[in-house]
C-alpha cells in the first residue's frame, strides 16, 4: 500500500499534467537519473559500454523518433535505417569538413539535415496512407543506401567505401575515434538521450502531440476541428527524422567508429527499431526505452546463458533469438499493441489498488 495516489492530491492543473503524477514514480525517476549520471560513469567498463549501455541509449533515441512518427502520428515508416544513414553521413561530412567545430554541434546539425530529408520523403504521406506509405518509405530506405554507396563524395572517395570517424573531443575528452573511453562514449549518448526524451515528452503532451494523435486516430475529424494535415504530418516526419538522424550520427561516430552503409544501415535496422517500438509500446516515450533495452539485452542474455553457461553453439542461440523476437512481435501486435509500457502500467495499477482491488 505504499504505491498509491490516495493522499497525493492535485491542487492545480499544472500538477495534474506533470509527467509523473504519482510521488513514488517521481522518486524512481530521480533515482534512475542519479544512478545513470552519478554512478554508472564511474563503474562502466568497455564490455558494458559496447555490449549494452551505448547501443541501448542510441536505439532508445531512434525508437523515440520512430515512435513519434508511427506511435503518435500514425504514419508507418520502414525507412528508419536509411534516415539513420543520413545522420551518419551528414555527421561524417561535417566532421571532416569542419574539424574545428564541436562534435555536439555536428551531431545536432546532422539531426537537422535528416529532419529536412525526412520531411521530403514524408511528402507522399499527404496523399497515401498505411500500407502504401510503408512501401514508399521502404523505397526511401533502399534509395538512400544506394545513394550513399554510389556517390563517392559521401564517403570522401575512400578506397574501401567506408566512412571512419576521426577523433573529436567534448569538454577535453575524446568521444569519437579509437582513443575514446567507455565513460565518455556512455555520457555523450546519455546526455543526448536525456535531453531528447525530455523534448519528446514536452512535444507529445502539448498541442502538437494532440494534433499528431488526432491525425492518427481519425484524420477527417482532425481536419474538421482545425488540424492542418500538411503541418501535422510534415512536423511529425521532421521531428521524428531529427531524432533518428541524431541516433544514426551517434551510432556511427561514437559506437561503431567506422561504417559501411549497407551493413550498418540496411533494412534490418528499420525492422529492428520498428520491433523495438512494437514490443516497447506504440505512443509511449517510456516504451521506446523499454523496447530498446529489451532488444539490446535479449541477444546478450541469450548468448551468456545458452552459449556461455550451457555450451550451445552460437548459431543455435541466434536462431532462438529470432524465434523469441518473432513470437513476441506477434503476441504484442495481437494482444497488447501498447507493449511493455502498457503491461508495466497495468502492473502498477494492480499495485496501486493492492491489497484491496475493489
Amino acid at each position, binding site marked *: 500500500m505504499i504505491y498509491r495516489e490516495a493522499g497525493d492530491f492535485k491542487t492545480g492543473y499544472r500538477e495534474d499534467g506533470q509527467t509523473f503524477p504519482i510521488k513514488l514514480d517521481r522518486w524512481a525517476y530521480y533515482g534512475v537519473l542519479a544512478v545513470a549520471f552519478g554512478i554508472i560513469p564511474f563503474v562502466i567498463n568497455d564490455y558494458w559500454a559496447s555490449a549494452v549501455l551505448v547501443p541501448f541509449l542510441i536505439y532508445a533515441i531512434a525508437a523515440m523518433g520512430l515512435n513519434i512518427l508511427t506511435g503518435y502520428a500514425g504514419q508507418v515508416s520502414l525507412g528508419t535505417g536509411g534516415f539513420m544513414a543520413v545522420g551518419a553521413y551528414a555527421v561524417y561530412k561535417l566532421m571532416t569538413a569542419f574539424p574545428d567545430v564541436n562534435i555536439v554541434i555536428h551531431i545536432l546539425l546532422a539531426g537537422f539535415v535528416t529532419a529536412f530529408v525526412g520531411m521530403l520523403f514524408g511528402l507522399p504521406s499527404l496523399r497515401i496512407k498505411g500500407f502504401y506509405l510503408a512501401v514508399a518509405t521502404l523505397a526511401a530506405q533502399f534509395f538512400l543506401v544506394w545513394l550513399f554507396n554510389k556517390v563517392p563524395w559521401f564517403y570522401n572517395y575512400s578506397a574501401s567505401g567506408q566512412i571512419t570517424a576521426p577523433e573529436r573531443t567534448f569538454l577535453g575528452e575524446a568521444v569519437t575515434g579509437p582513443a575514446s573511453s567507455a565513460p565518455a562514449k556512455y555520457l555523450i549518448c546519455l546526455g543526448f538521450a536525456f535531453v531528447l526524451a525530455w523534448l519528446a515528452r514536452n512535444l507529445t503532451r502539448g498541442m502538437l502531440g494532440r494534433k499528431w494523435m488526432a491525425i492518427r*486516430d481519425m484524420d477527417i*475529424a482532425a*481536419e*474538421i476541428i*482545425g488540424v*492542418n*494535415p500538411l503541418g501535422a504530418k510534415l*512536423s511529425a516526419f521532421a521531428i521524428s527524422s531529427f531524432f533518428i538522424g541524431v541516433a544514426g550520427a551517434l551510432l556511427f561516430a561514437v559506437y561503431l567508429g567506422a561504417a559501411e552503409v549497407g551493413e550498418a544501415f540496411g533494412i534490418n535496422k528499420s525492422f529492428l527499431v520498428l520491433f523495438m517500438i512494437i514490443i516497447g509500446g506504440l*505512443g509511449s516515450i517510456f516504451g521506446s526505452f523499454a523496447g530498446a533495452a529489451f532488444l539490446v539485452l535479449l541477444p546478450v542474455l541469450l548468448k551468456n546463458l545458452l552459449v556461455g553457461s550451457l555450451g550451445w553453439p552460437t548459431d543455435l542461440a541466434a536462431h532462438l533469438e529470432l524465434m523469441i523476437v518473432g513470437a513476441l512481435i506477434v503476441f504484442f501486435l495481437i494482444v497488447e499493441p501498447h507493449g511493455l509500457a502498457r503491461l508495466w502500467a497495468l502492473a502498477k495499477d494492480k499495485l496501486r489498488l493492492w491489497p484491496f482491488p475493489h
Partner: protein
Amino acid sequence: MASVPEEGVVTPDGRQIGGVLMEMKNITLRFGGVVAVKDISFDIRKGEIRAIIGPNGAGKSSMLNVISGFYNPQEGEVWFKGYRRGPMKPYEVARLGIARTFQNIALFDGMTVLDNIMTGRLNKMRSGFLAQALWWGAAEREEIENRAQVEKIIDFLEIQNIRKTPVGRLPYGLKKRVELARALAAEPQLLLLDEPMAGMNVEEKEDMSRFILDVNDEFGTTIALIEHDMGVVMDISDRVVVMDYGRKIGDGTPAEVRGNQEVIDAYLGVAHD
C-alpha cells in the same frame, strides 16, 4: 418567423435572434450523377436553433458538409458573417468559428476524454514550436488556461468522472456527449450537429436536448442541427428547413412546417412525380 426583420427579434422565451449569420444561396452539390443538394437557399440567423429535417438520403448531411467546408458545392454561394466564402479547406473553416459533430461519431479513440476536448481548443493556442518543446512559460501557461476552459465544459456537460478515460471505452451515449464537448471547446459562433440524438434512448435524448438549449442560451451559440425525432425538433428549434430528394420543400417555424402539405406528403411517403 420566416421573414425576420434585419435587426432581429426576441423569441417568446426571451432569447435574442439577430441578423443573418450564414446564408446559403442556390447551392447545388453533385456526386458524379447523384445530385445530393439541388439549388437550395436558406439562411441561419445569429442566436437561433435551426433544424434541417427530411427523410433518409434527402441530402441533409451533404448540406451540413457544405457548410463545414467538407465539400465544395458545384454551384451556389456560401456567405458567412456578411462575406462570401470561397472554396476552403475544412481546417480553414474551423478557424472562422464553425465547429461540428458527426452523424457517425468521429472521436479520437486512442486519446482520453480530456485530450479529445483539449484538441477542440487548438485554434485558441498560439505558443510556438520551441516554447512547446521546452515547455517554457507561454506553452505551459496556455496549456493551463485552456485546461481551465475545458474543465468548465466538462462540468457543464456533466462528464467529470470520465475525464481520464480513453474515449474508445465509452458507451455510445457518452461518446456523443464528448463529441459535443469537443465542438464546444472551440467556442464556435456556429455549431453544426449531425443527428446528435440518433440511437439514444428517451432519457439520453432529454439530456441532450437540455444541453443543446443550454449551450444556445448560456453561450449565445447559433446552432444548426439535423434530427429525425420530430418531437425533439418541434420542441427545441426556432426554424426548420425541410429537404427531400435534395430539394428544399419547406422552411419556417415548426408550426408552419407542420402544416405544409408537401412536407406531410414527403413524410407519409407519397409517390414522387
